[in-house]
């Protein structure tokens, strides 16, 4: 498969989960495991541009597909507007949910570039955060939507 633009190839056991492939084979440890019931979203990555919980996808299912993780989001030293918005709006504290939360938010805006606050809240229901009370995460997503919309219309 392709991970953040680079081909990664390995023979793995059938049951290997995508999240463990990303962390242990590709060596990209930003993506975290926060539960074992597909409930928390900490492991969210993009599979061909769409968010998936990588604890619930077999590595084999991603064979031949493109995976994007938090590490692949920035353009060189320039943060993605979503990363920048999480920074300016204080959308993270301990940082553990952040990689999954940012990827889910990127996917959310790809589907709905101008969401309302309620749509952001509903869209992120599958991603738990225990630090921020979601307040600043929601603001960050709305801020990123403003900036990304501005870029698109220029």
């Amino acid at each position, binding site marked *: 498969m392709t991970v953040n633009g680079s081909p990664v190839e390995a023979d793995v*056991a059938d049951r290997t989960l995508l999240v463990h492939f990303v962390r242990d084979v590709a060596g990209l440890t*930003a993506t975290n495991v926060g539960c074992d019931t597909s*409930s*928390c979203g900490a492991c969210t990555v993009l599979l061909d541009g769409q968010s998936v919980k990588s604890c619930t996808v077999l590595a084999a299912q991603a064979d031949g597909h493109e995976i994007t993780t938090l*590490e692949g989001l920035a353009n060189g030293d320039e943060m993605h507007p979503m990363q920048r918005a999480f920074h300016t709006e204080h959308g993270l504290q301990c940082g*553990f949910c952040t990689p999954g939360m940012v990827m889910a938010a990127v996917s959310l805006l790809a589907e709905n570039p101008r969401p309302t606050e309620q749509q952001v809240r509903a869209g992120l229901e599958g991603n738990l955060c*225990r630090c921020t009370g979601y*307040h600043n995460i929601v603001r960050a997503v709305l801020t990123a939507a403003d900036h990304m919309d501005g870029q698109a219309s220029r």
Partner: protein
Amino acid sequence: MSILGTRVVRTEDPRLLTAGGVYVDDVRVPELAGAARVTFVRSPFAHALIKGVDAAAALAAPGVLAVLTFTDINDIPPPPPPPEGGPPPGSEAAPMPLGGVWQEPLLAVDRVRFVGEPVAMVLTDDSYQGEDAAELVTVDYEPLPAVVGIEQSLAGGTLLFPDAGTNIPVDHAAVDAAFDGCDVVVERDIVNQRVAPVPMEGRAAAACWQGGKLTVWVSTQNAQISRFILAGAFGMDPGSIRVVAPDVGGGFGAKVALDRDAILVAWAARHTSRPARWVETRSENLTGMTHGRAQRHTVKIGGTRDGRVLAYRLDVVQDTGAYARMGGFLPTLTNLMAAGPYDLASVTVGYRVTLTNTTPISAYRGAGRPEATAAIERAMDLFAAEIGMDPAEVRRKNLVPSDKFPYQTPCGALYDTGDYAGALDKVLAGAGYAGLRAEQARRRERGDVVQLGIGVSSYVEITAADADNGETARVVVNDDGTATVYTGSSAHGQGHHTAWAMIVENDLGIPMNKVTVKHGDTDEMPFGTGTYASRSLQLGGVAVHRADLEVREQARKLAADLMEASEADLELDTSTGLWQVRGDPGASRTWADVARHSGAEGLSAFVHYKDGAPTFPFGSHVAVAEVDTETGKVTLIRHVTVDDAGTVLNPVLTEGQRHGGIAQGVAQALLEEMVYDADGNPLTGTLADYAAITAAELPSFELLVSETPATINPLGAKGIGEAGTIGSTPAMHSAVIDAVSHLGIRHIDMPTTPSRVWAAISEARNSQ
């Protein structure tokens, strides 16, 4: 202009947002190369005798290196005996954890006392093999009757520790308060339910031994305390132990120091001569990590019909789970803060601690204080309902007046500074309280299906309760003019790196981007206390400030020598970071000049700052909820708060702390509960069952500003980490009950789930 008090975004974030944090499971250092994976075999029974363990099948499975039980723990000293065999049953002493007959083993010996208790360890090459092999370990259990819930524990029909002869290690009953002269007295039991902390990163530890030195990476709030606990457990010199807290994915009190599981990981690494790493699963976390709250309150409140409360009594029963860790201590904080922000003539308190066959209880965001606030705020509402007065008005009549500070409570607390009525007035104005009451009246008159509830809470809490333990800091100015701060405090999301760098910039004029903050490595900073009880800024931050001042005085001497001037004429321009001779602005020296002049000695200062007393943040919250009277569903539509934690260093950080606290407090009132069945089986042991609150169940919060400085420390700071949780639970809880109070409902226990609210409504309507 000082940088203090301004909005500064976090320096921590770019790394966390682009590369991700480095949590224990992410640590890739040579010492951990080839580390064995530890998988615990945990008890599926709440209470059982262990008749035998058969590891043969597991040992034959692929990748299995070892299966270890208590019989293998023959190479570390036994725990030191408590004095005189431990506290006698029923004593008022409340040591934590309890020793003697109440001793908690590292691995279960001949019995298990809660589902999730560690029984054996499986070491494998990888984690998948570990999960497989753990299932192959056969433990022969003989089930015993389980003690679940406070009533069953108090009845004593089954004992967790037969040698102790009781399930009640601590009994300190309250005497009655002075209810004579009260027109009205209300009494009732209130449940403050058991909840799970659920930091997004669960517990994790890794360990290696090299040349007699132990290094442990652990997800903890207190690397330095963890080092001393490990030293005690292994009978080692603390100097031979290094503890590293890498990035920590949330703690909320449940990662104070380290658990027996982490000690076992270090032990297993030595026992098998191979580095080892353990990262718990979420299901493991929900039963293995300590829970919080779990108190039953009996409140009795009395006063006059014109709204003056004269007497209040609080009896606490703490379900401490299977082992009294911090659970023996938490109710002392509940008792200390029982009087809340009120000026009451008579307050009496008491508590008992009981053991049950459930996960042990320890600190969870607020740790004993949210329980105190929940109890008296509920009591205030019950009293207000009984005399037919607006609950906000009853509070206003009883708050400690601003001219009475410092205020000594009947419970032993000395509230330092405050403007409690000011906070209440501000939050009521911000919420538009009168308008909300009018809207509520309209909906009631129309008989709307969706009713409006308004909950008001006032609170005061205690932060840095152990102020005399203090905190450490070392500030170094390097030869290139940059500064490095080593702190004994510990960050797991609070933003210490940003805040400490702001303090240095303010004190020394070294810009934040030239200040590096280091925490959580005992080789770099062996002594410190760490983070709990909302203590970091007022102790650890002040320690940095004091170290800055010492560095500045050293630098003054060096600069005077360099510039051939008298020390008295030297001044530091903190806007530029330049040392100058008064009256001669042309000549100046940089921090780099001064630091290089210090030679081999270097330019640095170590401070262990201690405060003489805790501080007491306070505030008021208003929650506005809609309750669907046909389904019982509750929706929080607004949450308005005043949280006064003294002088604010960085509003960005304090707002973040308030937001998170509010959400966790609301979650307890609305949704979250750790539930057990009658046999002690957890029914909410996964995140599919445990109702951790999500973005979809919360509104954006409305935060109002109030800053009444603390006088005991130079920053004027009090703690803010737990205030949001303490204020929000009773406001949210009250809003739900308020929405249906016109039906005659006075109380619904938390969590106010749709089924509970619907049941209360049905019962009220049927009895009408």
